[in-house]
């Protein structure tokens, strides 16, 4: 491990030095991408109901601020939000950490299968997981409850389990977020030298002891960034709380904001009120960023890839293998097998029903025939693949450069850049999509109605995650490698490409796959920005759901995650060159 030293500043890193314009251009692009939704949101807070943020009416108001900040209800919602986020974090982070360690640092058999299976919940929209769980554990007619009542001959016609509860909400959200956390944490493990772990194992420590006493402390800054990131994400996610929260009595900020943007039959949504509520998330984000910056200051203590014998090592699990597989199997059952089974079942049915011999008679392939009979499927798959691939590539390249700049050239400018890329995460997706629509529709470059506006929107949306991921990976690469490159005559960009980017390739790959999967399944952005010719699969999934054709929606979903799992597996094989199989 490198010793802690005060960060030095190298003139060669100056953004504009020696014609090094690329970093400067990247900074401009990233700031432009990040500022647009922020501006859109801030402007919206001053616009009255029934106007858009850039409405030509010219009306302005302060009416939303007292409605939001002087209402005690706001603080009740905030309390529920924090409780929900913290509880979900407490449940999901340790599991994700454990899974990342199992996948990357152990000899657990079947890791490749586990790795692939983790992409299924990753690509499943969270609201479909929630609907799946309602059909499994709904208190009245959830399949598992019905089976339990039959098997145990229970008299009650309700329960015994109820998904509409605080812990039901936390459980379903955790199932949905664990794969992403796992993916984020995986990059940290892959860049971590195992010399200290080797020493501990040689000294007779058990694998779990090494994990707790060596691995975890080494990963602390990276884990902290993931925790901070996800605390913020959990204040913004709304699908699962929207479906389970109101009945469970848990009213979170994201759902409240969403309701402001979807109020039916009353004219335009009140975007101003939604944006003002979102300011709370932004303030929370600012606090978390300050905390994050504190964590970043510890970075040099944790640089573990030093170029001096870096060699990730596999931990032999021995008899622990069975216990580990038991935990993995339990998770896969809850997160993948049960919800995807019910989703698949419903894709074969005309309406949602409890799987039984009687309902088996009603199954058919009609939904699949309907989906494949249309001429739009090929175009939608093509659009989805292009948008997701370009967005994920652009996002991760920008993120890698931002991470490199912020870690290797600490200054007020790069610290501000780091913060700016973080902030859009706190802005609700409908507000992001609306801001992009309103600003780019007036652009002199005609990108409205093309795939480019979708690519820009997704890049804007996911830059925050990409930057967090690459930042934590960059933190673990010691600057002595850069110094060696400079001594050998390499310039900053060559050093970035040949040293940093290549060492961060595992994290880059994971981020690429994550952005790809999320761009494929995201509904809010295509709903505003896709047109007839640029429609994505997510459009028809949501449209079918919103028009009451849930059977068709789940059929598209089944096809969607089959396609994404295949593409993600191909991407992994291409980009990691078999590193997982080591």
């Amino acid at each position, binding site marked *: 491990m490198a010793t802690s030293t005060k960060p030095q500043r190298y003139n060669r890193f100056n953004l504009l030095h020696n014609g090094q314009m690329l970093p400067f251009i990247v900074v401009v692009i990233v700031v432009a991408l990040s500022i647009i939704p922020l501006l859109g949101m801030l402007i919206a807070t001053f616009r009255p109901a029934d106007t858009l943020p850039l409405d030509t009416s010219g009306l302005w108001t302060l009416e939303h601020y007292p409605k939001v900040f002087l209402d005690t209800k706001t603080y009740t919602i905030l309390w529920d939000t924090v409780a929900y986020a913290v509880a979900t974090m407490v449940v999901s982070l340790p599991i994700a950490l454990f899974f990342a360690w199992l996948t990357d640092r152990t000899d657990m058999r079947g890791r490749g299968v586990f790795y692939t299976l983790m992409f299924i919940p990753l690509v499943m929209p969270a609201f479909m997981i929630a609907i799946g769980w309602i059909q499994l554990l709904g208190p009245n007619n959830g399949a598992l409850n019905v089976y339990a009542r039959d098997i145990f001959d229970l008299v009650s016609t309700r329960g015994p389990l109820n998904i509409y509860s605080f812990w039901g909400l936390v459980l379903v959200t955790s199932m949905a977020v664990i794969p992403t956390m796992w993916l984020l944490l995986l990059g940290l493990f892959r860049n971590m030298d195992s010399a200290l772990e080797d020493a501990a194992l040689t000294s007779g420590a058990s694998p779990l002891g090494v994990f707790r006493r060596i691995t975890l402390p080494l990963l602390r800054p990276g884990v902290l960034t993931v925790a901070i990131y996800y605390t913020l994400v959990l204040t913004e996610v709304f699908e699962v709380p929207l479906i389970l929260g109101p009945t469970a009595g848990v009213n979170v900020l994201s759902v409240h904001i969403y309701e402001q943007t979807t109020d039916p039959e*009353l004219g335009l949504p009140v975007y101003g009120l939604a944006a003002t509520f979102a300011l709370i998330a932004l303030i929370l984000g600012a606090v978390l960023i300050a905390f994050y910056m504190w964590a970043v200051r510890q970075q040099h203590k944790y640089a573990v890839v030093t170029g001096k014998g*870096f060699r990730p090592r596999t931990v032999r699990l021995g008899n622990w293998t069975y216990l580990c597989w038991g935990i993995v199997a339990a998770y896969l059952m809850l997160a993948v097998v049960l919800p995807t089974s019910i989703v698949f079942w419903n894709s074969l049915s005309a309406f949602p029903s409890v799987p039984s011999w009687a309902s088996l008679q009603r199954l058919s392939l009609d939904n699949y025939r309907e989906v494949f009979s249309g001429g739009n499927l090929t175009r939608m798959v093509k659009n989805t693949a292009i948008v997701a691939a370009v967005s994920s590539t652009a996002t991760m390249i920008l993120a890698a450069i931002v991470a490199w700049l912020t870690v290797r050239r600490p200054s007020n400018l790069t610290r501000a850049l780091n913060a700016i890329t973080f902030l859009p995460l706190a802005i609700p997706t409908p507000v992001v999509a609306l801001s992009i629509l309103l600003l780019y529709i007036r652009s002199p470059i005609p990108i409205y109605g093309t*795939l480019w506006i979708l690519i820009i929107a997704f890049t804007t949306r996911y830059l925050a995650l990409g930057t967090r991921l690459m930042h934590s990976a960059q933190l673990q690469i010691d600057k002595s490698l850069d110094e060696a490159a400079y001594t050998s005559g390499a310039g900053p960009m060559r050093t970035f490409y040949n040293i940093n980017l290549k060492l961060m390739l595992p994290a880059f790959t994971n981020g690429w796959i994550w952005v790809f999967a999320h761009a494929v399944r995201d509904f809010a952005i295509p*709903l505003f920005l896709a047109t007839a010719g640029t429609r994505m699969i997510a459009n028809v999934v949501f449209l079918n*759901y919103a028009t009451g054709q849930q059977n068709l929606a789940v059929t598209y979903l089944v096809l969607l995650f089959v396609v994404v799992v295949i593409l993600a597996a191909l991407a992994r094989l291409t980009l990691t060159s078999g590193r997982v199989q080591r």
Partner: protein
Amino acid sequence: MLRKIGSRKVSFLVLLGIVAATLVFAACGSDPTATQRPADTAVPPTATTAPGTTMAPPANTAVPPTPVGGQAFADLVAAAKAEVEANKTVIIRGGGYKESTLSRLEVDFRNEFDIDMNLEDDPKTFQEVPTVYIAECQAGIKNLPILWYNSAGTAAPVFDKGCGRDDIDWKGLFSEKWPLIGEIVDLQPYPALRNGALIYLSRMNVIAYNTDFIDPADSPKSIEDLTDPKYKGRVGTHGIGFMPSFLQAVWSQDQAIDYAKRLKANEPIFGSGSPALAGMVASGEVWATVINHSFADRAIAAGAPVNWNIPSDGLVIYHDNLNLPKNASHPNLAVLLTAYIAMEGVGGAIGDGEGWSRVMPSDGRGTLGAKLDEAGLDASKMVDGGTIENATAERAFRGTIADIYKG
């Protein structure tokens, strides 16, 4: 170690190859049917066009804009045909119809008017459409999708901001072809929409129930019945409370608040709208709830154990409109197709393909008429969900109901 890094150079080059390929692919993947910003050449408004309206010809077409108001039906058909010959791709918005439904509509329309178009749906829900149309209108975008689906209350802002067509004489153009069109024009509750929108469906908030768990003879006949303790934990409702907020019109605000409190005490399961609640009733997770009758009908058509009653203590009715925007790509076809869908398509291609049950004043009102008679409802207990005169006050009251639900 640097040698080890070098061993992955090929992989990294593959990555860069993907970037380059996808960028080129994306550049080629631009939407040929997308709306476009206009060229700076001004198109003079026609004599019969409403003040402030500019109608652009469809892209790549030599057909000049044709006046609509007072135009003979035959001329309209000819103009619509010319528009389609110039640009065969015709886009509509917000219907969310299946491709098979649109294909059937194309065929039926071609058989009727000998106009051969490729009908496509812009994939947006009714929530986004008004926002997107206003944004496009204010940015001066031309060649927009020709019509969109919305209830009057949701479509009104587009017209209020001058972005909807308001120059169409539906009766003058179509009374000879479809004598009953006057009835649906008069049904329009929102005066500002009368010359730009046409009602094609009416939907009611009915009590849907699962027949596996509730015997039809013992089914809830009134909204009040949903507060019966025997349905505790088994009734569903929309979380934002729009149903009681609308029914204040026939109940009073105090009664609506009291009802919301008693419903909350019955531990309802909250759903995020009629489609979600319809799915819950079909699956049996919710035994009874108030939803839009179209979604209950769709569940019944799919074979789900669902039935519905018209609530005897108050009924909310919505009129779904076909609305016409300014700056549509095919302005004459938009008028013709809208009238066709309202008078023929909804009872044919759309009714068969989507499961919607048509409600028209003079067509026997289908199953709806009988159910209305059975419920014994008179006009004093009916609320038109499309006539929101004070949206701000309505939103505030809806917030009060939602707070009760969340409390």
